[in-house]
């Protein structure tokens, strides 16, 4: 199946974290993209990732987007968002859970993380988003 912008979210809904590459010796792109930057092949294949990684950086957000406020976050319940470098090499954006958002200084860059799938309320529906939790 062709890779589209929907591929990443569809796989997350199925609790799978995926990237794409043109071959076993080529870099993996996450989220999966359809065209290799070096045009080494016409088609890219999906690769399922281990979901292991480390925290590159983060923020704790008291002034949230309306999407996050609808999901119950905000000034009284700030969420953590960050970038995680995956064991396979590439980095991605994700919500960070299992950390003390009342004490951001306790959250450490470089922490080992593992993937988790979060069902987030979005009005009348629920969406599944990718999250990472520190490995204790």
């Amino acid at each position, binding site marked *: 199946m062709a890779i589209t*912008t929907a591929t*990443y*979210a569809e796989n997350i809904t199925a609790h799978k974290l995926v990237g794409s590459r043109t071959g076993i010796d080529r870099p993996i792109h996450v*989220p999966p993209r359809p065209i290799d930057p070096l045009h080494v092949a016409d088609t890219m294949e999906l690769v399922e990732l281990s979901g292991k990684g480390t925290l*590159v*950086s*983060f*923020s*704790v*957000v*008291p*002034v*949230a*987007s*309306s*999407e*996050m*406020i609808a999901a119950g*976050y905000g000034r009284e319940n*700030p*969420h*953590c*968002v*960050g*970038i995680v470098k995956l064991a396979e090499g*590439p*980095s*991605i*954006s*994700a*919500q960070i859970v299992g950390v003390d958002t009342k004490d*951001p200084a306790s959250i450490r*860059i470089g922490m080992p993380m593992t993937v988790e799938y979060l069902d987030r309320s979005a009005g009348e529906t629920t*969406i599944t*988003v*990718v999250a990472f939790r520190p490995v204790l």
Partner: protein
Amino acid sequence: MKERKLGRGVAMVGAGMSTFGAFAGISTRDLLADAYRDMIATVDRGFDPNEIDGLYIGNFSSELFEGQGHTAPIMTEWLGLAHRPATRVENACASGGTALRQGVMAIASGLYDVVLVGGIEKMSDLPIERATDALATAGDKLFEIPSGFTFPAFYATMASAYLDRYGLGAEVLRAVAVKNHENGALNPKAHFGQRIADVMASKKAAAAKKGKPVPQWKDIEEFFADDRANPMIAWPLRLFDCSPVSDGAACVLLVREDLALQFTDTPIRIIGTGQASDGALHGRPDITTVTSARIAAGEAYAMAHVTPEEISLAEVHDCFTIAEIVATEDIGFFEAGKGGVAAIDGVTSRLGARPVNTSGGLKSKGHPVGASGVAQAVEIWKQLRQEAGPRGIGANARLGLTHNVGGTGQTSVVHIFERR
């Protein structure tokens, strides 16, 4: 670095801006009309509006902010420039800088001789949550925003990485805020043109007047750490680390260089332009620098045949305090990791060796996003012509640089200006 050349020289012969602020009932049309009138007054020998061949208007999101699309032609009618070809340019917060570059290219190509470049944004009508959502559309809606990123959170994530990498604390961020408010206090067009010490004094006075407990901050440091006076927006960035949501417009008049002396004895030549793009923040190997800004600056320096050491002053994209620190490193003023310390040491202050954001920057002057890149050129115009009044850096200023970033660096545009 590939060395690029302009087909013809380009000079700025007029520059103006509206006051930046929050103006209920005032639209982008009114703001650009103010900026246009201000610009007209700066063209020493005057000009005939019929000479304007075309317009490029930087505008991020009038659809979301004021429910209006197709803004460029609307401006021609309002400015009395009917039927002139007008093109809106959108590159998020770099819309203005990109519009300037389009104007430069239109003249350099030989197509036009006289171009009006404008930048506009009207942001203050929306409630803060909707303004936050509108600004977040500069990020990647599919692959970044669902994680819970807001716009401040992107820069906060860069700040966390930067401070961790170099073992620094919030004091470097604070130094940028204090400096830019010092400069903004000397700019009558600034949105928040108040020194931080004056902000503290007025908050104390307001509390006393209302009969509330008067805050007892010992110094600026205590004020910055006060969760009530300076609330956390996205850790580690607080309110005074963020540029405001502003309304405003700016414009400059560009002409082909060999016509410039018909308009003024003191044209400001645009001798370098560079632009580059990048993807989502998470896709970059190092988030303590903005690669697109380094590429854009490199291109502009190569075209201008000047080095960072020769630049007299820079207006950089300080949408957040951390952004100025990273910017001063990306444009080659300081080595990686040294930009924050330079701000603390006063190197980037108005009277320092490398003045940065003498206008007050986005931080104090205000950040009507589409206008900001053009307003940077207005400050360089004033400084290089020694018309910056009490914030002037002196008669030796010969080369100026502007650095305008869209999103977290998905776009960067750098220009270099010269007074001969």
